[in-house]
């Protein structure tokens, strides 16, 4: 049943890349749900492969009933290499679904337990590993497609009335970056549209700009590019957005702007429409009219 549901969800996500997924098959792992980082966020050289939840120290429960596959305790466990996720637990849920709970507080995981029901405590939210505050980093893996799946596509929806923000729209042509404003004159050629785009939440003071769910770029009414943070997987040694060849360094510039897409700039006037959407369906658009010089 769950496998069937998942098989429906993932292609559905691919088909409706810009619609929030209606199906919620997982449970929230904590009672106080303050999402402080979203899936696909810029982490300099990689995408954020799960979501972060704050809200202070609290019990962490599994997103589905599951079985312990792997656990690590930061101060006492043996490891052959350094683990930035701190103390963590990996649960197997059958049907090739696994979930990972990172940065757990040391000493709060029951070393003897191997089977977890929804009401069982995995541990307490902590600040272990490469972490700048108490939070839970939750990862959901679809082992069948070897992908990290956006947990927000499978968790019950959260109330969110704030639309994403689009700022600092720019055009990169060769090595030059032109700030874009409506009516601006730009040279001909091929250029990349860049913008600062993030999804604000009223209850979060940001460490990182949160990624929206999707970004679309249209030119003269025709969609030329779309980025949606549905799933990540590794292809030839690079983690990319599933269904694309876009790695984190392709999607984000060094200073955190989103590369929204590339366009051909032909002499004349063009209308650019940039749209960002979050998981609750809030949308923001930015329209620009540019004139390309002969």
């Amino acid at each position, binding site marked *: 049943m769950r496998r069937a549901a998942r098989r429906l969800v993932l292609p559905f996500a691919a088909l409706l890349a810009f619609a929030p997924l209606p199906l919620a098959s997982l449970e929230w792992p904590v009672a106080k749900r303050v999402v402080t980082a979203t899936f696909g966020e810029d*982490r*300099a*050289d*990689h995408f*954020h*492969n*799960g979501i972060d939840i704050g809200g202070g120290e609290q019990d962490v429960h599994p997103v589905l009933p599951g*079985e*312990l*596959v*792997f*656990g*690590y305790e930061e101060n006492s*466990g*043996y*490891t*052959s*290499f*350094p*683990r*930035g*996720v701190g103390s963590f637990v*990996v649960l*197997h849920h059958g049907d090739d679904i*696994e979930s*990972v709970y990172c940065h757990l507080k040391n000493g709060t995981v029951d070393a003897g337990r*191997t089977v977890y029901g929804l009401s069982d405590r995995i541990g307490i939210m902590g600040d272990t*590993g*490469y*972490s*700048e505050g108490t939070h839970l*980093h939750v*990862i959901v*893996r679809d*082992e069948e497609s*070897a992908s990290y799946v956006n947990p927000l596509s499978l968790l019950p929806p959260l109330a969110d009335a704030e639309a994403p923000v689009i700022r600092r729209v720019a055009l990169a042509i060769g090595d030059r970056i032109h700030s874009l404003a409506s009516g601006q004159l730009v040279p001909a050629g091929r250029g990349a549209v860049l913008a600062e785009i993030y999804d604000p939440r009223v209850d979060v003071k940001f460490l990182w700009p949160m990624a929206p769910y999707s970004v679309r770029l249209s030119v003269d009414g025709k969609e030329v590019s779309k980025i949606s943070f549905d799933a990540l*997987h*590794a292809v030839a*040694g*690079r*983690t990319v957005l599933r269904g694309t060849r876009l790695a984190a360094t392709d999607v984000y510039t060094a200073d955190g702007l989103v590369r929204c897409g590339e366009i051909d700039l032909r002499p004349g006037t063009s209308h650019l429409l940039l749209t960002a959407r979050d998981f609750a369906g809030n949308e923001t658009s930015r329209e620009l009219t540019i004139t390309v010089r002969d």
Partner: protein
Amino acid sequence: MRKKRAASGFIAAIAVIILHFILFPHPLGKELVARPAWAINLPPAESLPPGGRSADPGGEAGRFATFQLGELFGFVSPSGRLLHAERILFRVALSQRGFVNYTRIGSDWVLRDPGGERLFSFAGRGYPLASADGNRVFVVKTDLTGLQEVDGNGEVLWSRDFPSMLASVSVERDHLLAGLLDGALELVDATGAAVFQSVPAGSRIPVILAVAASPDGLHLASVSGIDRQWLIVLGKKGASYAEVSRTVLPAEFRRELRLAFSPDSRYLVLEGDGMAGLYDPASRRLSWIPLGGALAGASFLGTGRAAALLGRAGSTWRLTIAAPPSSVLCGQSFRGKAAFVGSLDGQVLLAVDGRLLRVDVEAM
């Protein structure tokens, strides 16, 4: 008359046997004996200044062993000269060539030599990892999805992401063997290319719990799976590797285990439940040695003639010297908060609380 002749014959036979032992004495086999060579006091970690305390290496430069005991790490010479001692900031990437003593949050790291002098710096949003000889330095991504290697100038040589999160890593010379949480093994060469991939089968839940690559490059070993858990050894066959043995393990773990080849590649040591397994790739035989606790450290002496195995049960430790594959030569229990076992000049280096000692295992 007949009785008298039989008695004479018996006496003559005994005399011949005695004469044989007198004329052709059979030498007794040598026994391995463990004896302490020296012991020194270690400074309390909290008493050391930032950057640690260093000493002149004297005539023993280049012959140091590393040690790590609780919050303290350092380098010591074969004669017991403490070359460097420093308090660990968060973790330390420790190698023969030097160390990176790093903080919990950061992205700019410095490799220092055993005397504490800067060798080179490098950047990366992740934690540093050094091979045992220190000739290869990596940065492991914070989310365990990949790593990158840096050169002696701190430049990134290559970067590689894996299909799943890293569960275990073994670096030997030109190769890095990665074991992944999805149950796959990837062998990566010095350019970052995957040269061999394998998914050990035979378990209800696939997962890799430990990996080890042999220094001679001829064997790869892994502990994999839940329900059933296997020790699988692969042998080099042409440009690839093929399974040479598969052993069901008696206890199932759901965490990373200690698994390592001896420096001469002749033996593999494996963590078991209150035991250490010693596997001989030549005979494909796995023997278990009781430790009285969990395997907390292991080192091989000389060219693999003996293994020093450290077991721990709470604050009770037991050092067992074993001759592979299965002979226990001697053992000693002691109590302490922290202990460490390593090797120094082919002998045992043992640290317990504030003491560091060298134990020589010799044939007598």
